[in-house]
């Protein structure tokens, strides 16, 4: 890939190069708090996973500014088609850690009723955080369709869709970008380029100069942003969202960043990423970068971080305890929500499962380990 200079706002001293993000003090602090919340949620999940209390989790360390910067450009009436590595966007918009923890534990209170793996959230309120799908790229055309529908109704709603560098090779990327271009659909394509798709580096993924340039194939403007710079992300995403709302069509935004952890709790990245790469990116930590900006604005005192982290640790541990205490979903959740109405054959299958449990005792849970 070419070393294109990405859009940057926050400089090494915490200055914003004259950019006014248009965020209140409260909002700026909310950004900061949300980034820390992502990190604490992550830490907590890692511990829960390592101690066998949940099965799986996805690390976000290093990506927080990409998530939160983008979230600041979204309205509650917008649609968010996120990937599994985006939950900072949900947290920014007020989705509660405990509701996320219900999913991590796959319990009866989970919106997905324990059907999905951990980190596959679904929320309708306070923002339409669309049920996450594991197959890579399939959600991109959904965003285009939802945006098309909004436009047809004359709403100024925008559909945001987030995916990784690997996701650009998927079929959904090709179809979605192409349809969005032709329809001038109000979509913002957020490519979270963290340089790796599990163990595959960008050289294995594409020979293009950048990910943003892929927009050329579809008549969709492309922008490259420093994904560790919260304000740069906000700037680019807000501009794209405003253009989309005004009927100007879609934009592809490539946020250059790096995940400091493994692909998931089942992955050991040191097997395929050189140590130097980690070291280099550690210096670009997005939270420290934003702290500098807050400091320059007079909004940050050193003590704040420890205090906020303390509060968050408490909140999120409490969320985990609450979720863990909720039991598994009841047996009938296997059979419901397949269709709007339960068809006869599913009623019969469910009945048979109940009968058997009564006659022969319950099924026993295995101890499957997740490798990915």
């Amino acid at each position, binding site marked *: 890939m070419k070393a294109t200079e990405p859009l940057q706002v926050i400089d090494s001293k915490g200055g914003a190069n004259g950019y006014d993000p248009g965020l209140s003090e409260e909002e700026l602090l909310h950004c900061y708090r949300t980034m820390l919340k992502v990190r604490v949620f992550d830490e907590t999940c890692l511990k829960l996973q390592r101690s066998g209390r949940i099965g799986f989790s996805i690390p976000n360390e290093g990506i927080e500014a990409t998530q939160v910067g983008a979230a600041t450009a979204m309205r509650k009436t917008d649609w968010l088609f996120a990937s599994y590595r985006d939950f900072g966007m949900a947290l920014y918009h007020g989705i509660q850690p405990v509701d996320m923890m219900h999913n991590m534990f796959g319990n009866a209170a989970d919106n997905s009723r324990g059907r999905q793996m951990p980190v596959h959230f679904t929320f*309708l309120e306070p923002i339409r955080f669309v*049920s996450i799908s594991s197959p890579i790229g399939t959600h991109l055309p*959904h965003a285009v369709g*939802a945006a098309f529908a909004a436009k*047809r109704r004359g709403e100024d709603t925008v559909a945001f869709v987030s995916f990784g560098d690997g996701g650009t090779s998927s079929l959904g990327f090709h179809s979605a970008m*192409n349809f969005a271009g032709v329809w001038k659909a109000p979509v913002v394509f957020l490519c979270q380029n963290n340089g790796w798709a599990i163990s595959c580096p960008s050289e294995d993924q594409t020979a293009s100069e950048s990910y943003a340039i892929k927009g050329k194939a579809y008549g969709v403007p492309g922008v490259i942003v420093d994904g560790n710079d919260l304000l740069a992300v906000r700037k680019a995403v807000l501009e794209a969202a405003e253009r989309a709302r005004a009927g100007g069509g879609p934009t592809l935004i490539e946020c250059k960043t790096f995940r400091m952890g493994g692909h998931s709790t089942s992955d050991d990245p040191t097997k395929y990423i050189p140590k130097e790469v980690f070291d280099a990116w550690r210096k670009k930590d997005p939270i420290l970068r934003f702290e500098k900006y807050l400091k320059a604005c007079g909004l940050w005192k050193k003590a704040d971080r420890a205090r906020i982290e303390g509060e968050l640790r408490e909140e999120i541990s409490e969320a985990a305890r609450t979720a863990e205490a909720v039991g598994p979903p009841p047996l009938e959740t296997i059979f419901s*929500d397949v269709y*709007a109405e339960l068809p006869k*054959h599913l009623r019969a299958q469910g009945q048979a499962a109940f009968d058997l449990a009564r006659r022969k005792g319950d099924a026993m849970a295995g101890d499957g380990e997740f490798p990915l």
Partner: protein
Amino acid sequence: MSNLTLIQAVNDALHTTMQADPSVHVLGEDVGKKGGVFLATENLTNEFGEERCFNTPLSEDGIVGTAIGMAMNGLKPVAEIQFQDFIFPAFDQIVSEAAKLRYRSGGQYTAPLVIRTPYGGGIRGGLYHSQSGEAYFCHTPGLKVVIPSTPHDAKGLLISAIEDPDPVLFLEPKALYRAVKGEVPEGHYTVDLSTVREVRAGKDVTVFCYGAMVPVAEKAAEAAAAQGIDTRVIDLRTLLPLDEEAVLDAARSTGRVVVVHEAPRFCGFGAEISALIAEHAIEYMEAPVARVTGFDTPFPNTLEHHYLPDQRRVLDAIERVAHY
């Protein structure tokens, strides 16, 4: 009432729902000005504008994928796939997304779209313009699969499909598009999904069939009648969810069964019918459950009339099970 061909009935259903409900949108390759390669969408763009009935890029993945998004956000998309043979680029969207969205989101998000597509042989279309892929989809919980065989059902079932809260794959037997004509009520009416249609009563043998095999089975049943074999013909018409009770009742009523479809035999839809009977009605069976199907090969061109079950083959099976 008007006397319409099957494809005119499809067009009528689209017309009727588009008129009644502004959220209904039709999309697909060539569905706009040209009206679709079979003319199923003729005049819809003229009448409802390019925003309601429009061409898409050549990507079935995109057609179904964006239609899912539209359906999530309040529209009623009716997507056309030009030939069922070309639906496979959209297989992931159908099987992984449309069929599973309600389940995985605990009902928070749903995808009530309709995918219409012509299927089956009889037009000298060879490998890629003749296939009957229903079994690929019927193994997919969350999806509904519907196949009409008369103009009346085509309109009524399609309106039901469009009004259904779940994703429906609507397979149209292209061999019948212009080959059958029938009375079709004007305006709005529905035919319930998940009910079978008795085409012909009979007490010796039951033939299960659907789509373009229905008239073939009917003719074979008439020929059997001439030999004194009284044959019941059941048009399954909604394959998923199937009215299993109706199937088992019919099977039990005659104790002799023939299942007919165009698709290859192995793991075809007919296997499920046989399996249901073997599981729930075997004690009523007085003969093997026969299948008359396409061969387990790709679909040939010049010899398609040998490949497709015809009256000869169905009659032979009826005779076999009747005289077993």
